[in-house]
Every structure is written in structure tokens, then in C-alpha cells.
């Protein structure tokens, strides 16, 4: 096995035994061969990642020598961080995001920055200012989004693990499309300090890894209260690696019937139902339950999240950072900078968000949206009375073709129909590879859990992963 094929835990052990340089040169070779095709990592220049000062030698610690790629919306001190947008071109944060501090503190090495949909607005990585990312399993297909660069990089062995962010499915859907593991933690579990905001009440940073063990290992360091993020929770952080055991006996798993309706690809449905059968065989209790407000989730999300986004993106005005188009008047400078700097999808969401917050429309849209969000949250609260975990597909279809949905925003938005509810409710959710289509595309299932109960998700996912043994299958590159 080549070093680039190793998992995160194996990479750490390899670096400890053989040295970080041996691991790095294998990864660099892999990246140089494949990244031009995949476009998963942005601004990648070999020399940036070979010498100091950009790449300090890994310190000691539990993640010593582990290279991790970072989504381009998580601030890394001294590295241009631009959310794959022209408007932030040249923006170099003077500080590390909380998660970067934590990873560095544990000895991990920031290694490459991942392509993404511009400002995380998208489900296909086609809205990036750096051009689309390609799916390692089929270069004609999208890797999913918005953390598609992270998922593609991990799937293709460019890095052993990556960080993504998830506002409406942006970690889980690309994980499913690329055949890797993606975990969106409970809202408040991981500090958002240093994550360039999209939908502040939805955003969470999480790991994208080759297997469940690596996700657990990373979560141990990502999670925890941070005084700089008022929405971060004071809950204690367990050692997630203790949940890496095959044990689902008596676990009550619910299949929400609304997630198995029209529009669901038969191959997706089949693999998820087979997974349910495996769980049943292993002693879990499988029941069908209702989450009755699911049909409103996408609509609510595209009101509340875009409202927050329209406000969050106001600061990209050409005054202090990123790009500026000079003009004769202030107003004209704003207009030109934002006209030139934002892509079509970003503009669409800014317009939508501005509209729903406008005088005269606020009550009909934003306020109403918040009410329905509460109902969706209550659906989940009710579900936890009878089940411990919810099992569903991660996405209604496998990876679609590049260009297939780009001109049809509504179809694109609907590809997040299974993942959005967890963000609306703030619950943790994990996507796990669970099979392949006949044509060889990976499929993913989603496990959703109680708030702050990532442990059960990890345990359930680990059990199935060990049982069906499909993680580790490599894309035909």
C-alpha cells in the first residue's frame, strides 16, 4: 500500500515510523498527478507545501504528522482563504479558526485548501470561482457540494482527511457522492470561530474522512466549547474513539417515511433498505416513523439560510478586504465590486435573502419560516421519544452529471432534501458509504441522532461499516 492510500490514523502511525517527509512526498506526487484533473485543491503549488514558513514542521501530539486539507471557507492564518470567490481574492486572514488552532495544537499539519461552491452556495461544486471539481469515481460527474473539494480530495487519496462545513448538507452529500465518511456535528458542538459564515444558525464544521474511525479521531479535537463563539455549547466532549465498537443490539433505528417517497432513486433506496436489514440482523430494532413537516424543509431553508447569508455577505463591499473595483463614487464602488466579485448563485441568494427580510415581506417569509423551523425541530424531538437514531438516504440520487442541474436551481436545491432537516433542527448527522450503483457510483446513507449524541452515530456507523466492508474501495483513477 502506498502512503497516500493510508487512512488518517494509519498516516499518523506511518509518519511516526517513517517520518512526515515520506508521507508528504507520496501525497504531493498524488496531488500533482490527479489534482489537475479533479480540481479538488485550490491554489496548489508544490513549493508552498514543501518548505517553511508556510508549512511548519509538525509538532508532537495525538495527530502529529497528520496532513489535513481545509475547506476554503475556514480561516488559516497567513494563507489566502477566499471561499472560492473572486470577491475574497487575496484575502489572507490574520488569525486561525478555532478548529485550526485545535488541529495544529494536536500536531496536525494544514495541507492544502479545498475547492468548494462559492461561499458554500451549492450542491455540486460548480459555482466555484476556481472552476468545477470533478468526482473521482466519474470525472464527468459532480463531487457534490459544497464541500466537494474536501470529499473528492479524500476519496482520491490526495489527503487522508479534510475539513468541510455543512449548512444544508454540504459535508454529507459530497461524502455520499464520493464514497467517503462525512459528519455534521450538532449545532454548537464545534466552534464556528473562523468559519466564514453562510447561514450562521445552521453552519457547522466537520470531518470528511476515509472511514468512521478517522471521523471519531478528528471529532475528539474539533469538538468543544469556545468562548469566542456564543453559540458553541458547554457540553462535555467524550472520547469518540471509545464509540468505535460493533454494537447495535437494542438500538432503535427509525426510517422516516417522508425520506423514502417520490424522486428517490431505486438503487439508493435499495442500498439503504439493505443497510436497515443488516442492522436488524445485528439486533437493532427497525421502525418506520413520521417526520410530518419534512416537505417544508427545503422551502424553509431557502428562506432562513439565505436571509442570514444576505446579511453575512454584506461585509464583502470592497472597503477593507478582498477585491475592490475602483469607481467614482462610493455607491458605484459597492455596485461594481459586488457585481464583479460575486458569482450568479451568490447573487441569487443575496437577492432572495434581501427580499425575505424586506419591509412588508418579513412576516410572510422570514417569520413564517422560523415558525416552520420550530415545527421541524419538534418533529425530531418527538422522534427521539421512540427511536435513538434515524436512518435515511443521504441524497435522493447518486452523483449527477456536471452541468445537469446548474441551470435549474430548484432541482439543485432539491438534491439537499434529505440533509437540510438535520441543519434546521441542529441535530448531528453522518453520511456513510453503503453501496454502489451498477455503474459503479458510490451511494451513501445518513444517520441522524439526538443533539450532542454523536457517539451513537459513530457507533452505529462503525458497526455497519465493519459489517458491510465497502469503505476503502478506491475510485478508478
Amino acid at each position, binding site marked *: 500500500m502506498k502512503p497516500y492510500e493510508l487512512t488518517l490514523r494509519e498516516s499518523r502511525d506511518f509518519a511516526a515510523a517513517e517520518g512526515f517527509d515520506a508521507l508528504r512526498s507520496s501525497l504531493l506526487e498524488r496531488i500533482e498527478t490527479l489534482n489537475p484533473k479533479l480540481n479538488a485543491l485550490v491554489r496548489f503549488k508544490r513549493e508552498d507545501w514543501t518548505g517553511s514558513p508556510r508549512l511548519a514542521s509538525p509538532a508532537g501530539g495525538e495527530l502529529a504528522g497528520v496532513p489535513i486539507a481545509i475547506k476554503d471557507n475556514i480561516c488559516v492564518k497567513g494563507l489566502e482563504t477566499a471561499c472560492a470567490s473572486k470577491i475574497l481574492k487575496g484575502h489572507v486572514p490574520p*488569525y486561525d479558526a478555532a478548529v485550526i488552532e485545535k488541529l495544529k495544537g494536536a500536531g496536525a499539519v494544514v495541507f492544502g485548501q479545498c475547492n468548494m461552491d462559492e461561499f458554500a452556495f451549492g450542491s455540486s461544486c460548480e459555482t466555484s470561482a476556481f472552476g468545477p471539481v470533478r468526482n473521482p469515481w466519474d470525472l464527468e460527474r459532480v463531487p457534490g457540494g459544497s464541500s466537494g473539494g474536501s470529499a473528492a480530495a479524500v476519496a482520491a487519496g490526495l489527503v487522508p482527511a479534510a475539513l468541510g462545513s455543512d449548512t444544508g448538507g454540504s459535508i454529507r452529500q459530497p461524502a455520499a457522492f464520493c464514497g467517503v465518511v462525512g459528519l455534521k456535528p450538532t449545532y454548537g458542538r464545534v466552534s464556528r470561530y473562523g468559519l466564514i459564515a453562510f447561514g450562521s*444558525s445552521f453552519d457547522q464544521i466537520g470531518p470528511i474522512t476515509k472511514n468512521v474511525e478517522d471521523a471519531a479521531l478528528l471529532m475528539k479535537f474539533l469538538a468543544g466549547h469556545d468562548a469566542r463563539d456564543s*453559540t458553541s455549547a458547554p457540553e462535555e466532549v467524550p472520547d469518540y474513539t471509545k464509540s468505535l465498537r460493533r454494537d447495535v443490539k437494542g438500538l432503535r433505528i427509525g426510517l422516516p417515511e417522508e425520506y423514502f417517497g417520490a424522486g428517490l432513486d431505486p438503487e439508493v433506496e435499495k442500498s439503504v433498505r439493505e443497510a436497515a436489514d443488516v442492522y436488524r440482523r445485528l439486533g437493532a430494532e427497525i421502525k418506520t416513523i413520521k417526520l410530518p413537516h419534512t416537505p417544508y424543509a427545503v422551502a424553509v431553508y431557502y428562506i432562513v439560510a439565505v436571509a442570514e447569508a444576505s*446579511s453575512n455577505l454584506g*461585509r*464583502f463591499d470592497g*472597503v477593507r478586504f478582498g477585491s475592490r473595483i475602483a469607481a467614482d463614487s462610493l455607491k458605484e464602488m459597492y455596485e461594481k465590486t459586488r457585481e464583479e466579485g460575486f458569482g450568479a448563485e451568490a447573487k441569487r441568494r443575496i437577492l432572495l435573502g434581501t427580499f425575505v427580510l424586506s419591509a412588508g415581506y418579513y412576516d410572510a417569509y422570514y417569520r413564517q419560516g422560523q415558525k416552520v423551523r420550530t415545527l421541524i425541530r419538534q418533529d425530531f424531538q418527538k422522534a427521539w421519544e421512540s427511536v435513538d437514531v434515524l436512518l435515511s438516504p443521504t441524497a435522493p440520487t447518486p452523483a449527477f452529471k456536471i452541468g445537469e442541474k446548474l441551470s435549474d436551481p430548484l432541482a439543485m436545491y432539491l438534491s439537499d432534501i434529505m440533509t437540510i432537516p438535520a441543519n434546521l433542527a441542529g441535530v448531528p448527522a453522518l453520511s456513510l458509504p453503503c453501496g454502489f450503483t451498477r455503474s459503479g457510483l458510490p451511494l451513501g446513507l445518513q444517520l441522524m441522532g439526538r443533539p450532542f449524541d454523536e457517539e451513537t452515530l459513530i457507533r452505529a456507523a462503525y458497526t455497519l461499516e465493519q459489517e458491510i466492508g465497502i469503505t476503502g474501495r478506491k475510485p478508478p483513477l
Partner: protein
Amino acid sequence: MTTVYEAVIGLEVHVQLDTHSKIFCACSTKFGSEPNANTCPVCLGLPGSLPVLNGQALHLAVKVGIALNCEISKRLKFDRKNYFYPDLPKAYQISQFDQPVNGAGWLLIETRSEDGSWKEKKIGIHRAHLEEDAGKLLHEGIEGASLVDFNRAGVPLLEIVSDPDLSSPEEAYAYLTSLKAILQYLEVSDCNMEEGSLRCDANVSIRKRGDKNLGTKTEIKNLNSFKNVQRAIQYEIERQTELVEGGGRVIQETRLWNDVKAQTFVMRSKEQAHDYRYFPEPDLVPLTIESAAIEAIRKELPELPAAKAARFRKDYGLGDYDASVLVQEKALAAYFEQAIKAHANAKMISNWMQSELLALLNSKKLAIQSSPVSAQALAGLVALIESGTISGKIAKDVLPVMFETGQTAQEVVREKGWVQVTDESLIETIADKIIADNSQSVQDYRAGKKQALGFLVGQMMKASQGKVNPKLANEVLARKIGV
């Protein structure tokens, strides 16, 4: 203004709360630092940064709320007010929209009635909410460019909005004076208008006297002193009255006060007004304010100006006007109380403070806290007058020397030999000379012109360089030329 119309005025006061660090980050709030020295990713609105509420800002806000008799909200929630401007780093201001920390309350002002007497008026406080200040644009330095200083961005502000209960420029002035006194008593702000730690916008409309409905209002900005608030309101009332009487109508708009021209000018019309698209700030979770915490803050409150004035009237027999002047500043009231502890003649001490001492302090632009004449020293001066050691007239010469040299009244009097002459034989000698020199006046007096005696006393004072005790001089003269 004709008597047909009456003015309806409401004031919006922004006051910077005197915290060490900014409202949502740890940067210093110090005024006058190098531009952008007090900044960090949070107050610069750098991508990825997040706000965290400074508990001290909330504490001070609640303190003001209690002092203004406001209903304190049990739930603290912030909202985003969205608009683009280069001094606003995030393109939204974190403020409070529908749940201000302080709800309805009131404050008392004193106004002079037409008959000249003073009366109290209760002015409603509509709300007082917390928000962050913006940065400052600097238009000099670089040709064709503006610079932004973000030192002020994120300094905690309390916006105190009055009800439209004020009906004259004088009442507006009295409201501001009263509010400022309360804020200073609470030690929540230095209320320095020049440094911008207190700012005021005025909403002004007029209506036919007795009319229940409000007229169309204009908002006046750029008011940099209480006097200018008063002047601008006066101007605006006259402008609106003239407009309406001339058959026109008032347009809802924002106007800027021009101090030099002493006029208001249109800044923007209602049509150009912003839609701020308020929505709850998702980066700050709503907080609950416990009743116990509010009660604990209530216990911290000092005696406030109105209560102090009432006590001064009751305990020291001061008049309304005297009491209200003395309590205007906490330090002034403290000085007064110290002085009367040393010498218990409240009325005289009050007079000497207000007439002589304040004039001296003003001439040197000194605050009462830095007065070279201590409260004890002023009390000593009053004691010398009362004991007859010096006359009030002499005392007026003594005080400036005390002010200049820091000496006590006794030291000054001894050094200058200004002790009042009370030796009757000496007074009689002077009186004899004055009687001899002014036979006409003596005759006038004897003929019944009583005021001639005053003239003769005056002559005696003059001859003795003011050292003769006027009461004794009077007695001696009357006896000598007596009828």
C-alpha cells in the same frame, strides 16, 4: 411661534457606555488612540469572526434602565440592522429591534413656568437599547480618498429614546441636562459631547394647540451641544410654523443642523430612508436576565439627582432653583455637602458656591473636583463672614486670593490685614470725620431723607477700605447724628 401651534419634540440620545473593552470583543474603548490601534478581527468584521457580549455593557445598560424607571426586559435578544456604509465593518450593526433591554420608563425635568416659578414635568422614556458604535470616517489626509478609523467600532452604545413629551426647546435642554446628570451620577458614561460619548438627534413636529394627532416630524441630526439642540429645535419649530402658515406642509425628512448658518438643511427624505431589514442576530444566543440580578444592580444605584435635590430642599431649606443647580453635578453636590459639614450655613454656602466659586472655576475652565478652594476652605470663609470677622464685601476679595494661592480664608485675611474693624472707638473716630466732611448729607438725613445715611455709611466704608463693620458703622452714625 404663534400661539396657534404647539411643538411636539422627542429626543434620541446615544450614550457610549464606559466599559474597558468593546461590546463584542476585548479591544480597548480608549478615546484618542492612534487610528485603528484598538481593533481586532471581530470589530473589523473580518470574515469568520464572531461577537461575544461584554457583560459589563449589559450591566451598565440595566443600571440606566433602573434609574430611568424602565421596565427591564427579562430576555436579552440582539438583532442585525443591515445597511452599507464604510464605517460599518460588517454592513450590519448589532442592535436591538423589538425587545430592547430597557422598555418604557420616565424621567423628571424642571421647567420654568410663565410666572417664573419652577415646576416638575414627567417625560416618558420610550425605550433604551444596547448596540455597537460604528467607526469614523476621516476625510482629510489623502486627496480624493476617505480613511476609516475603526477604534470606535464596537464601543457599546445605549440609545435612549424619549416619548414625544417635550414641548419647547427649553424643555429639550432641561431633559438633556437632567439625563446627563443621571448618567454621570451612575458613572456609566462621561457624557462628553465633544468626544462623541453623548450624541443627540431631535424629532420635531408642530400641531394646532389642542390637536390630538401628531404632525409630520422631521429628524434633526448633527447636534454637537445641548445649546445647539435647543437652537436647532427653535429654528425647526419656526421653520415648520412658517411653512404651515404659508399654506405649505412639512415633509418627513432627516435634516442636518448647520451651526455656523444656524439653520437646518435636508439630508434625506423619507423615500430615501433605509429598509434596515432587521432580523434576530444568529451569532448571539438570547439570554435570560434573572430578577435577582436586576435587584442586585438596583442596590448599586447611588442617590440620584432628583432625590438629592428633594433632600437638599427638605434638610437644608434650599430653594428649588438652588437645589437643582447643586445636584446637576454629582461632584458639585458632594462639595456642597462637605462644606456644610464644616460650617452648617447651607444657604450661604450655596450662594457662595453658585455666585462666586463657579464663576472663578469657569474662568479657569476647572471642574469642581479640581477647585483650588476646598469645601472646608469655602466653609471657613463663610464662617468668617458670619462671625463678623470680615464683611461680605471683603470676602469677595478674599476668595480670589484663596483661589490663586490655595490659602485658607483666615490666612488671607491675616496676611492682608483685612480683618473687619469692630472697635467702636475707632469707628466713632471715622464717623466723626465723615460727619464733619459731609454736613449737607447730615442735614438731609436730619430733614428726613433716610437714604442719606446709606451714603454716609458708604463713605465710612470707603475711608476704611471696606474694613468697617457696616452694621456697626450704621449704628454709630445713626446715634451720632440721630434724630
